C-alpha cells in the first residue's frame, strides 16, 4: 500500500475576482521511504498541493473541493481538525522556503523544537531538551548548546534551515514535505542542505515530497517526478526516464530552456507566453496556448494522464 495516495485532488480559492482553480484534479502515489519531486513554475499549484496534504489551506478563501488524500489508508480530507493535528507534525511534517518566516522570532530555536517534541511525544521539558540537542546534532550542527539558545535572527539562513529540518524530523515522521527548501540559500549552502535531507531520508526512512522549480535539484534528489502545469500534472515518471525521454511538450520546453553549464553557447529554446491565469484557465489542454504542436483536439478536450509504457504517465493528445 502506498504511504500517500492522492486521488483527483481539487483545491480552489474563492476570491473576489473569481474562483482560482489552483489544483485541478491531481493524482499521485508515494511509497514509504520514496523520494518524489513536484516540479513546475510559479503558480502551477505545486505548493497548494503540498498545503492540501497538510490541510493548511487558508479557509476562506481556499477549500479542498473534492478528491481524496489517503495517508496510511486514512483520508485526510475527511478527518476532523483535531485528529489532523495529531497527524501533522507527528506523521507528516513540512519545511518551508524561508525559515525566517516559519520560525518564531521571539523564542529561541531550542525552545521551539522542545515545544514540538513535548506536544507530539508527551515528554517532560528536560527530556525534550535532550532530544532537541540530539536532533540538532543529527542535522550536523556542531555547537548544539549555543544554537539551541539562539534566536532565529542570530543564525544564518543555512543554520535556520537546519533547525527547521531538526524540528520537522524530531518526531520521526513517515513523510517530510519540503517546499523549496533551498531557494533562499546560496549554492554552497544549498548543497549542504540537500545532502543533509538525502542523508536523513536514508537513515530514518522518511518519505520525501520535494517541491521545487529547479530541475537540477529534482535530478539529484528524487526517484520519481511529477511535472505540474496550470494546476494539473502533465507528466509523471521515474526521474531517469523523465530526463532521458520527456514526452510532454511542456516538460521538453522546460528542460531545453535551462542554460547548460557544459555545452557550447546555443540559443535557448523558448516557451512563448507565460503561465495561464487560473481563474479562467484555457479550455482543453491548459498548455495549448503556449504549445508549438497544438492541434484542434488540444483546444477542445482536456487530456488525461495515459501510461505510455513502464509507468510513464503523460497528459497530452499527441
Amino acid at each position: 500500500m502506498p504511504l500517500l495516495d492522492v486521488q483527483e485532488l481539487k483545491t480552489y480559492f474563492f476570491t473576489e475576482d473569481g474562483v482560482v482553480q489552483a489544483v485541478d484534479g491531481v493524482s499521485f502515489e508515494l511509497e514509504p521511504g520514496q523520494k518524489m519531486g513536484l516540479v513546475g513554475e510559479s503558480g502551477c499549484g505545486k505548493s497548494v498541493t503540498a498545503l492540501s496534504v497538510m490541510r493548511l489551506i487558508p479557509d476562506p478563501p481556499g477549500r479542498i473541493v473534492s478528491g481524496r488524500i489517503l495517508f496510511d489508508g486514512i483520508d485526510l480530507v475527511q478527518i476532523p481538525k483535531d485528529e489532523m493535528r495529531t497527524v501533522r507534525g507527528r506523521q507528516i511534517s513540512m519545511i518551508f522556503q524561508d525559515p525566517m518566516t516559519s520560525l518564531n522570532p521571539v523564542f529561541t530555536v531550542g525552545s521551539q523544537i522542545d515545544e514540538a517534541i513535548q506536544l507530539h511525544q508527551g515528554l517532560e521539558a528536560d527530556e525534550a531538551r535532550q532530544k532537541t540537542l540530539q536532533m540538532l546534532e543529527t542535522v550536523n550542527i556542531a555547537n548544539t548548546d549555543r544554537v539551541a539558545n539562539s534566536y532565529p535572527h542570530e543564525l544564518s539562513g543555512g543554520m535556520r534551515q537546519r533547525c527547521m529540518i531538526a524540528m520537522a524530523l524530531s518526531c520521526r515522521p513517515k513523510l517530510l514535505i519540503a517546499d523549496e527548501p533551498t531557494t533562499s540559500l546560496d549554492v554552497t549552502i544549498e548543497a549542504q542542505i540537500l545532502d543533509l535531507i538525502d542523508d536523513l531520508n536514508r537513515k530514518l526512512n522518511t518519505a520525501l515530497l520535494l517541491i521545487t522549480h529547479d530541475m537540477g535539484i529534482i535530478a539529484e534528489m528524487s526517484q520519481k517526478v511529477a511535472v505540474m502545469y496550470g494546476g494539473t500534472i502533465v507528466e509523471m515518471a521515474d526521474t531517469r526516464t523523465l530526463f532521458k525521454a520527456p514526452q510532454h511538450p511542456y516538460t521538453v520546453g522546460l528542460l531545453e530552456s535551462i542554460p547548460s553549464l557544459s555545452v557550447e553557447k546555443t540559443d535557448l529554446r523558448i516557451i512563448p507566453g507565460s503561465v495561464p491565469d487560473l481563474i479562467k484557465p484555457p479550455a482543453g489542454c491548459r498548455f495549448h496556448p503556449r504549445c508549438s504542436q497544438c492541434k484542434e483536439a488540444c483546444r477542445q478536450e482536456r487530456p488525461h494522464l495515459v501510461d505510455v509504457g513502464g509507468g510513464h504517465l503523460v497528459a497530452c493528445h499527441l
Partner: protein
Amino acid sequence: MSAADIWSPATCRCVDLDNDVLLQTVNLTKYFSIIKGMLRRSINHVHAVDDVSFRIRRGRNLGLVGESGCGKTTVGRTIMRLLDPTSGQILYNDDGKQIDIAALSRGELRKMRSKMQIVFQDPQSSLNPRRTIRDTIAEPLEILKGMKGEQLEIRVLELLDDVGLNPEHAQRYPHEFSGGQRQRIGIARAIAVKPELVILDEPTSSLDVSVQAQVLNLLLELQKEHHMSYMFISHDLSVIRHMCDEVAVMYLGEIVESGGIRDVFLDSRHPYTRALFSAIPVPDPTRKRSRIMLQGAVPSALNPPSGCRFHTRCPFAKPLCSEQVPKEYEAGSGHSVKCHFQDLKFE
C-alpha cells in the same frame, strides 16, 4: 597587483588594446562605515569590495559571479557611481579619451549616463508604480537626449517593439505586467539612450526558467543589434556561461579567479570556483558527481579572515593560507587565480 597583470598587452590578441577596452577598474575598493553613537564615529568598516581590478571589452560580456554578500552588486553600483568608491579608479574609454568615473562631478556624471545604464534585479521595485510605461521609458530620452514631441513618441514605440512589447502597453502601469514583461520594460529603459555598456544585476533571478530563457535570448538579440557590452552580475553560473565571454569569480569582496569563460569553466583552478561548480545541481540524473563540500558559511565582511579570505572554508587550506595573502597567479593567457596552490589540481 595591477590590472595589467591580468591582461598584459602580450596576452591580448587585439591590435589596439586601448580602444578594445571599454571599461577598466583599477584597485577598486568600497568600504561601508559602521557609524555608532551621537558623534557618529565610524567604528568599523564592511569590506564590501576590496582591490578589484578587471576589464570589460567592447562588444563583449563580462560575468561577475559569486554568492550573496560577495560584493558583486556593490561593484556594479560603484561603477555606475550610484555608490562612491572608497578608493581606486574606474577608467572609461570614451572614443579614445580616458575618463575616470570615480573622479567625476555630479554634472559630468550625468553626461556619462547616456553611455552606461543599469538593469536591476527586481523589476517590481525599480519601476515607478505611478508612472505609465511610456513615461518611464521616455524619461531618459528627454533628460539625456533632449528628445521631445513626435520623435520621442516614435522612439518609445520603437523601444517597446525592440523588447517584444505592444504599442498599447505604453499607457499601462507596472502592476499590469508580469515579472518577465516588467524586466523587458527595465531593459527598454536601459537601452533607450543607446548606451555602450549595460550593467545587468541579476536580471533574471526573480523569473521562472521559461521566462528567464525569453529574457536571456532577448538580451543577446539586442546586443547583436546595438553592439553593447554587458556586465552580467549573477549567482547563477549556467546563466553566466550562456551569456558571457569572460568571467570573474568573487568571494568576500575579492576576485579570486578570472579569465575567459572556457578557461574558468573547463579548467577552474581556485578551490572556491571548483566548489561552486560542484555544488550546482545539474539536471541530469545519470550524472554522479563528486562534490567538494564546503563547511560553514561565508565569514563576515566586517573582519575578513587573515591571509587568503577563503582559508576558513577551504578544504585544502594549509598553514600558509592563513598567514599570507595570495598573489594573483597567471594560470594561462588572461586566466588569473588568487591562490597559493593554484598549480595543485586538488583532486
